[in-house]
């Protein structure tokens, strides 16, 4: 049972991190029709900014300032390059962001080096958020923080006693992502700015003729989207590893999220991130392979089939490629995505 709960939480925390990234990506896409290939690079810059600021002003101020700096970088990039190439159509826009991702990758290596930097979370987040104590006689108990040592020890070998702490960094990650989701939703639906943004999405000319500066709205949305990626970077970098390849590893997955959720759909992105996070985490737990399934169904396989390295692959081994399989399936059977509204 504690395995299920912890794996679920692990999967959800990873999924929520993906959501922090993909929400900005899908917002930018729905506004400008541009898939921002450099989005994961902003995630990486966020982590590195957070790392550098962390050593100067501490983690909490860094958590606030790093995303703002990243957002400012996003604004500058939009103003100086993206807006200039906008009139040439979508392909040049796409290529510009693509080029940016390479430049950022190289710049980060020049400034911070090619190896991982040590971005340690603050002491408050170092321990456990809560601990599940599973006792074979008294059942499951829940303890905030780390469980006292005597609760996790038993002299009686017959009693099965397992303590499973849940890291505070992950709990924090989940809280921030949920806060972000709520405030984003409130901003878009309940405020005047949100109304202008939503209107500019579908009817930019009408909004412009009403006297709103649509390019500036675009610029601010781009800045906000990259800022969110920066926030995810600070949290992701301190929880996992801060290194130059961190952008590339999530970069491909967030595109899967956006496509699976439906291009431009925020709720779709939320659903898809959670789904992919949970699928990837639980897939690791399954040791079924084609061979083991066939054998448990009573099919007799030849020696050659049993030792075939492809048929022997377990689900846990193919876990890293599952999101992409999912992507292909969605594109075949539901090209508009899970919650998307437009075709293709």
């Amino acid at each position: 049972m504690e395995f299920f709960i912890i794996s679920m939480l692990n999967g959800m925390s990873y999924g929520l991190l993906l959501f922090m990234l993909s929400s900005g990506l899908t917002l930018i896409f729905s506004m400008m029709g541009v898939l921002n290939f450099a989005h994961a690079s902003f995630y990486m810059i966020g982590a590195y900014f957070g790392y550098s600021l962390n050593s100067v002003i501490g983690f909490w101020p860094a958590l606030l300032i790093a995303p703002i700096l990243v957002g400012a970088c996003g604004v500058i990039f939009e103003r100086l390059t993206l807006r200039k190439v906008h009139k040439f159509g979508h392909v040049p826009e796409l290529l510009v962001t693509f080029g940016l991702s390479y430049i950022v990758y190289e710049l980060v290596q020049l400034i911070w080096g090619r190896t991982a930097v040590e971005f340690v979370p603050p002491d408050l987040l170092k321990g456990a958020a809560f601990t599940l104590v599973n006792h074979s006689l008294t059942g499951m108990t829940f303890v905030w923080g780390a469980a006292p040592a005597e609760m996790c020890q038993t002299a009686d070998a017959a009693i099965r006693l397992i303590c499973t702490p849940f890291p505070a960094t992950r709990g924090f990650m989940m809280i921030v992502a949920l806060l972000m989701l709520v405030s984003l939703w409130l901003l878009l639906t309940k405020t005047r700015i949100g109304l202008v943004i939503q209107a500019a999405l579908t009817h930019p000319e009408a909004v412009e003729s009403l006297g709103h500066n649509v390019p500036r709205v675009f610029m601010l949305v781009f800045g906000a989207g990259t800022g969110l990626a920066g926030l995810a970077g600070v949290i992701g970098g301190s929880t996992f590893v801060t290194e130059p390849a961190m952008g590339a590893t999530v970069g491909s997955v967030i595109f899967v999220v956006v496509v699976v959720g439906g291009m431009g759909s925020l709720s779709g992105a939320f659903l898809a991130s959670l789904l992919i996070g949970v699928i990837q985490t639980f897939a690791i737990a399954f040791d079924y392979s084609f061979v083991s399934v066939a054998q448990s169904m009573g099919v007799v396989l030849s020696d050659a089939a049993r030792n075939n390295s492809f048929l022997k692959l377990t689900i846990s081994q193919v876990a890293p490629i599952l999101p992409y399989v999912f992507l292909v399936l969605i594109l075949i059977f539901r090209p508009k995505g899970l919650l998307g509204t437009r075709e293709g």
Partner: protein
Amino acid sequence: MKFAIRSIAVAALAMSAFGAHAQKGETVKIAWIDPLSGLMAPVGNNQLKSFQFFAEKYSATNPAGVKFEVVGFDNKLSPAESLNVLKAATDQGIRYITQGNGSGVAGALIEAVNKHNERNPGKEIIFLNHSAVDPDFTNSKCSYWHFRFDADTSMKMEALTTFMKDRPETKKIFLLNQNYSHGHQVARFFKEGISRKRPDVQIVGEDLHPLAQVRDFAPYVAKIKASGADTVVTGNWGSDLALLVKAANEGGYTGNFYTYYTGVTGTPTALGKNGEGRVFQIAYGHYKMGGLMDKYQEEFKAKFNDDFYTGSVINIFTTLGDAMAKAKSTDPLKVAAALEGISSKSVFNGEIQMRKTDHQLQQPLYLTVWSKTDKKYNYSVENTGMTLVPVKEFPPYISSTPTSCQMKRPG
């Protein structure tokens, strides 16, 4: 151009000087082909520093009187990239290469070196393998041009399972390894060894994960805990071990770890004070081998603020120097012949011998455990206040394993 002139000059010098010590004063360049970027770069950085540090030391003291120079090439941990780099190295006239991180890379290099030497007689290359431990390299895929200075997985597992024989509390084992030849071999040889020595031990889980890709080992730790394993056996190294033990600490896993590479960059810091008495390492050395080695270690730390752990580097320079003195040449063709079967006195692990049949260095192995530093074992690894304390030593005659190598020799 400069290289061309220099190599012509060196060649001319070698041709003209038919003295007893023709090799004296020559510069022997060794191309170091390992990762300097990506998740495994910290390991590569440390080892490149180790090679350059000892190249300097051994240039002064080797019996052949040659000067060693190590040229670093970043292979990004990729076999394809390594072959490009090998080409670059041979274009520069470098005739000795060394690599160790990743048996996948080592396998590709062995094949490339075999091909190169077949096609370019007179320009042979020698591959000095410092850490790639896939047993195939000294069995089915053995090559005359390949020399291994680490102990292969069959040797390490022989020692490890022998140790487990005397630990009846080990009952349930989980095998977690990287999904490439090395990880497969660790799992295979462990199962083979344990079924011979402890048939009662149960393998409750076995998993393979991608090499140097996983950032988050929490799902694996949850799986290990759910399996009820009291012991994890893993051949993981670098970030794959550091992040694994970090996730195990966070996830509250309290079982034992039997590893190959606890002392390698990143893992000691990730372990910290945790894991005392629970994390074991099987290797050809540890942090308190005594004598000159302790001095070297202190010096290395003072110079780079980093730990020296790749002892095979020393054995490479020792053996290579002896072989060049014996061959009275730096020509790889002659040196390879001299390396075969050579016995040397290692600075740290006693009498070592490069076995002629398969080019596997025969050396003692040590099983060590992660413990607090004390009076005797006082080397603090990565300034953690912890160190690896030996619990059992396996002399070469125990750790040695038979080989099926049918080596093709030139001529």
